[in-house]
């Protein structure tokens, strides 16, 4: 009973948050709603008993991905008014497409039935006596190793792509070379120079030339006042 209530509670908030992501005026608020949606999805995973997935969802999506989202959204100066304009213009088309998809889903769900062979073909359920972390690990690194490795390659390509499109070697950039910095210690020496004298000639702070005495202004209009 409590689990059922909790499910509806989190599911409702999840959908509400998702709606707010789309409708919020300020993109930063959108991202924060997105984070709320992630949290509720994690809670739903917890209710389903998938604690590992729940935690990974929070760590990866909330802890890293959404932070970077937020970072980017805060840095970019998004013109809200302009964005709104586009929404106004395309909202009817979007609504129609969305409506069609929704009707389609309804249609599909109304004839829901399992394929006759589906039960036999279903993937193995979680084995008994194993935590779900271990169960995921077992299936991920054995049965699905092929897909796992391809996913890794996709991420690698994404990384290469990001570097290709953004990294620039500007001439004249100064870079720290830690090795060189540490190795230069022989070139630096401690010295105790006399007060007022530098180590080398050029370092000596020469006394300023004495300020030139201001020549008294030549008085030109002698006896100008009486």
């Amino acid at each position, binding site marked *: 009973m409590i689990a059922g209530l909790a499910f509806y509670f989190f599911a409702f908030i999840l959908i509400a948050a998702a709606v707010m992501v789309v409708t919020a005026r300020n993109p930063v608020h959108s991202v924060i709603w997105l984070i709320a949606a992630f949290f509720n999805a994690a809670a739903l995973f917890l209710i389903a008993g998938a*604690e590992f997935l729940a935690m990974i969802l*929070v760590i990866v999506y*909330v802890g*890293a991905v959404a*932070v*970077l989202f937020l970072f980017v959204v*805060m840095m970019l100066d998004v013109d809200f008014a302009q964005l709104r304009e586009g929404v106004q213009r395309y909202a009817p088309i979007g609504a129609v497409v969305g409506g069609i998809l929704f009707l389609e889903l309804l249609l599909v769900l109304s004839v829901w039935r399992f394929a006759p062979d589906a039960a036999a073909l279903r993937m193995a359920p979680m084995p008994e006596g194993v935590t779900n*972390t271990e169960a995921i690990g077992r299936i991920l690194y054995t049965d699905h190793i092929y897909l796992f490795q391809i996913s890794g390659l996709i991420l690698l390509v994404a990384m290469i792509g990001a570097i290709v499109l953004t990294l620039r070697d500007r001439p004249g950039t100064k870079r720290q070379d830690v090795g060189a910095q540490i190795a230069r210690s022989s070139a630096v020496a401690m010295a105790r120079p006399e007060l007022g004298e530098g180590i080398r000639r050029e370092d000596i702070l020469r006394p300023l030339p004495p300020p030139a005495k201001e020549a008294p202004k030549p008085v030109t209009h002698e006896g100008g006042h009486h």
Partner: protein
Amino acid sequence: MTEFLNTPLGVLALTVAQALALLVPVLIGVAYLTWAERKVLAAMQLRRGPNVVGPFGLLQPFADAIKMLMKETIIPSGASRLLFLAAPILTFVLAMIAWAVIPVADGWAIADINVGILYLFAISSLGVYGVIIAGWASNSKYAFLGALRSAAQMVSYEVSIGFVIVTVLLCVGSLNLTEIVRAQATVWFVIPLFPMFVIFFISALAETNRAPFDLPEGESELVAGFFVEYSSMSFALFFLGEYANMILMSALATILFLGGWLPPLDIAPFNWVPSPIWFALKVAACLFVFIWARATFPRYRYDQLMRLGWKVFLPFSLLWLVLTAAVLKLTGWLPA
């Protein structure tokens, strides 16, 4: 009595009591950590530190707290009010709820969940939101710069912390914190995994925005960084959150590497001391190093910080992870 404890209300009451029993010591610990920090820093700089309020200045934290409470809460006119107020609360709450899974002795955890370490990792990775939201909601340049620095910094160092945790998990074979401590009955992980302990500790410094990685605050260039606009209790909540996070990170280091509540040697004089005392002592030792580092090192430059995280710690911890896995596999020590 036991009947009452089995009713839903009883469970709730028991949980609240447990939470209070854990959080009150933690908060007192936070209060005295501020005092200890000032004392230790003073000693290292040949000063006396707080010594006026109460004997040895012991009442100083309470004096500070009262002062904070009496001040006016200022909300800048350009700020996003709701988020501005939510940020310190978030920081504080996150620092507190993480304690739910910390075992201070065998079986003494409020929630001894299967994926305890992941829970802690998740909560600590959320800490960045308090900072970044505060910086943005303040609508101030300094605060925003601090928030951006902190976002990049904390995400970067989380990566290496993640690898350190995975290395420990390889040696344990469980994500449960109690199991992690129990696995150290023969030898604390700090000995076989010493380089990982160093990386973890330095990353913890960065993760809690402590010196020498306190760029998000960066007094000398950003005034006070992300909380420059905060005053009164909202400021105090950040302060409490930061120090509670320090204690949390120390507790995590204790659990992962220093054998948790276990005594150093399981022989007569040591195992007379109750487990929670050992736990507290180890946490205190870690905290001392936190303060020590602050007294000793100058602040890192931002590019150095990023270089350390991505070009030194990340490859090294990856390498060590592979090495650990290989050693465990070849010697057959891999936990089933």
